[in-house]
């Protein structure tokens, strides 16, 4: 097997600048996530209407749970779809 040393990449693996993710709720001081305004919640949902994971949005655990609960309530009231395509 080629030892890792002599594997030569076509172009050097640029360590993609690791953007320090932050929790937007802590930073902007939002305390309550309202389930009644769907356009704000659309930011936390991908095109198919599924919830985005924390590693992408960078939100803290406490607020990710609040976002999840708000999105599920909005879905119950059909302010947001359960499944969708090209939601954005």
């Amino acid at each position, binding site marked *: 097997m080629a030892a890792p040393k002599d594997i030569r990449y076509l172009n050097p693996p640029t360590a993609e600048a690791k953007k320090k993710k932050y929790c937007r709720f802590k930073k902007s001081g939002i*305390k*309550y996530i*309202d*389930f*009644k305004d769907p356009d704000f919640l659309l930011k936390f949902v991908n095109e198919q209407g599924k919830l985005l994971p924390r590693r992408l949005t960078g939100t803290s655990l406490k607020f990710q749970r609040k976002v999840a609960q708000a999105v599920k*309530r909005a*879905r*119950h*009231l*059909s*302010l*947001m*779809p*359960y499944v*969708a395509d090209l939601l954005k």
Partner: protein
Amino acid sequence: MEKRYETVFILTPVLSDDQAKEAAKKIKKTITDLGGKVVNEENWGLKKLAYPIQKKTTGFYHLIEFAGEGEAIVNNLEVTYKRDERILRFLTVALDKHAVAYADKRKGRVAEAKTKKKESANA
């Protein structure tokens, strides 16, 4: 200890306007009968649903915020929701302190938006 609740319900679009108003009034009356105090009420009117409910794609949305004592008020309210066939869907939520602060701020924002609309209307 008085707790704040918020309930949103969707009325079937088949109703005429005054029937919809009458249904909303009926819900408000049941809340006040059960000893609750209605704090805020909003009527979002006819809105498109994200997915069809009972084969209907639109519905009248109503929001009512009220304060009440004890759980009985919510249980009885939900019983009346289940009995009334004009209501497609409902959701009752208890508000914690952050939610109450947000709701009051939102009430101010909505009232201010309404006055702005009125000014622009007659300006």
